[in-house]
């Protein structure tokens, strides 16, 4: 068939979606993200920044108020908690600094134009080596010592924490890790070796050695290596197999992908051969290429909005984004997972709702692919180029430059 007309990004609707996220209470369904409100806040602010509307649709008072809120969650000993829900009124073992919250807090402050004067930067840099494990990976939280318990590193082994720790080091130490030379750094070589050993037999990267390749983990690993300046043989066993694994995450849209799960199950169980075939049909343009093609995060899984970013950003960092079918991805997002009230859904299925994570990552993915109306973003930091430049204009970055 000939492809339908080129879709456009309905910018006003996305803007309205984000205004709602920032100005009204999120529905009760978000309760399970209560402890990660810093992440949600960061995405909401960063989305309006990507849409270029932050300075126009929010007032200086709003931005100031949000900056205050972020700082309210800074711990006296350095680092941030993920939400006021964890604030126990006074120092406690159960109100520890959290590496993700700390990363998203700093990113939010930068997005909001804060100069980071009140950020306990030295304390965060001191915290990072304590979060590192023997194998080079990072934990999630550092529980402070009490009378009868020592300081304790906790959390799963997860590439996400590696990324957050590395990104904090990059943002707060400055150019080439030169700032604060008196504060001991974490062991960069060990972290690089950890990432290298997590590259799987199929070329993708997992959360740890021998885990299944996963595009989210792969992004965290690639972005970390890039921020460490180690996108070379020391950090990756094979760039070729990684590239190949990444481009293979793009999958043609089949009719069934747009169906309700139960309807498809029913066709599978009781449908005729023709019905099954029709459900698995791929619509193609005159050039034979699929019209819609999003990304999945693991081999043989379904396409999901967020992976357009995790895979796209990984390829952008490797300077290989041109290898994907940009049009098919663009159509997948703008025609299949965008929602009428603005934002993006996770899956292209009927009856779905947009959520903050997928709505932000959908926009960020389009931004990577130079969508008109979205500001350019830095793939490794996941923030706009303008925000990154503001960060790099801060004192310790300027000092770092003069030292080199």
């Amino acid at each position, binding site marked *: 068939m000939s492809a339908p007309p080129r879709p456009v990004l309905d910018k006003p609707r996305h803007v309205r979606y984000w205004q709602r996220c920032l100005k009204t209470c999120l529905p*009760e369904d978000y*309760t399970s993200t209560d402890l990660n409100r810093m992440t949600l806040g960061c995405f909401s602010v960063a989305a309006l920044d990507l849409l270029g509307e932050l300075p126009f649709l929010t007032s200086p008072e709003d931005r100031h108020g949000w900056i205050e809120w972020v700082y309210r969650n800074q711990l006296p000993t350095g680092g941030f908690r993920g939400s006021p829900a964890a604030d126990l009124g006074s120092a406690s073992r159960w109100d520890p600094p959290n590496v993700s919250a700390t990363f998203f807090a700093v990113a939010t402050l930068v997005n909001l134009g804060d100069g980071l004067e009140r950020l306990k930067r030295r304390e965060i840099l001191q915290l990072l080596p304590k979060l590192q494990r023997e194998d080079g990976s990072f934990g999630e939280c550092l*529980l402070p010592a009490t009378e009868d318990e020592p300081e304790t590193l906790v959390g799963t082994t997860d590439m996400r924490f590696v990324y957050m720790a590395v990104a904090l080091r990059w943002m707060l130490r400055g150019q080439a890790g030169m700032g604060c030379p008196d504060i001991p750094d974490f062991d960069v070589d060990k972290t690089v070796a950890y990432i290298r050993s997590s590259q799987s037999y199929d070329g993708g990267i997992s959360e740890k050695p021998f885990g299944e390749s996963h595009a989210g983990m792969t992004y965290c690993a690639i972005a970390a290596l890039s921020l460490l300046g180690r996108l070379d043989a020391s950090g990756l066993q094979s760039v070729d197999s990684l590239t190949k694994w990444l481009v293979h995450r793009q999958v043609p849209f089949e009719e069934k992908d747009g169906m309700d799960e139960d309807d498809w199950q029913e066709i599978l169980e009781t449908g005729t051969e023709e019905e099954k075939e029709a459900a698995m049909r791929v619509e193609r343009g005159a050039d034979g290429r699929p019209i819609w093609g999003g990304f999945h995060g693991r081999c043989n899984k379904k396409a999901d909005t967020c992976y357009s970013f995790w895979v796209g950003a990984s390829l952008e960092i490797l300077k290989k984004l041109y290898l994907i079918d940009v049009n098919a991805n663009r159509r997948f997002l703008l025609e299949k997972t965008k929602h009428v009230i603005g934002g993006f859904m996770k899956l292209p299925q009927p009856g779905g709702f947009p959520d903050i994570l997928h709505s932000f990552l959908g926009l960020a993915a389009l931004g990577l692919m130079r969508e008109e109306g979205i500001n350019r973003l830095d793939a490794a930091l996941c923030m706009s180029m303008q925000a990154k430049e503001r960060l790099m204009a801060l004192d310790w970055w300027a000092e770092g430059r003069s030292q080199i």
Partner: protein
Amino acid sequence: MYQEDSEWDDIIPLPQDDGELPLSQIAYTEEYAEAMAYLRAIMAKDECSERALKITKHITEMNPAHYTVWLYRAKVVFALNADIRSEIKFLNDKALRHEKNYQIWHHRQMMMDKLGDPTGETEFISQMFEKDSKNYHVWSYRQWLVKRFDIWDAGELEYVEKLLEKDIRNNSAWNHRFFVLFGRGNNPSQEIIDREIKFTEEAIFLAPQNPSPWNYIRGVLSRVNMPLSTFEAVCKHYAPTGNPSRITSSHALDMLADIQASRPDTREEAEVALQLLAEKFDPIRTNYWNHRKVLLQKAGTA
């Protein structure tokens, strides 16, 4: 409900203070807001008590992703010397209802580590896999379990086979197979490698366009330093480039291109395979296959 409960009489709840202009505020239910206020109060005291177990259970029901509440609960369980078996039972029910949550699995790992006896674990994992046989957290936990209790040979491979029988495209199961084979550090015998080659061939026969076995066999061969050409005949079977209408697998074409590219006298054939991929058999990746062709041509002229 805590307010009226005499068991909580001595506790002054600690309400949440969000300041003047919060980001991403959530419309909590009254039940959650109240329970959280009491939880904060006893966490601040670092109280280890039966009621701490009760309230953490209540909170994790409403918010299973509360990271510190699980850590706190673990401490209380250990401090009270509570029955870990019943804690595991509680976690079973929790995990089945909150499939996407990873804190539950982290907590389970801490409990199991303390208990030191994995009896019943693989059975429960099977129950989880019945709901979603690709659950990332559960697979991750299973790997930990196998290593922690050294149960590599207690039916892991058989279990993987059972899952693959149900769904030959379950990539998580393929990955676990690789883990079982190579995760112990030393390479398996040639006999086992031959068995894996045969197993992979049979899987490909069932679904030639399934990428998992193709990736798997590449991994196995590379791990034991066997050339990809070991699999050349299989590739040619599914990708007879001389008769494109009979090609049934883009992955066979891709592997064939790699094999042919590694020999100067078959380099042109590799180009043909890449061309077929770009134009007919994998057009969503046209740019990628063309890129591979350019690399190949560059290598040829170098």
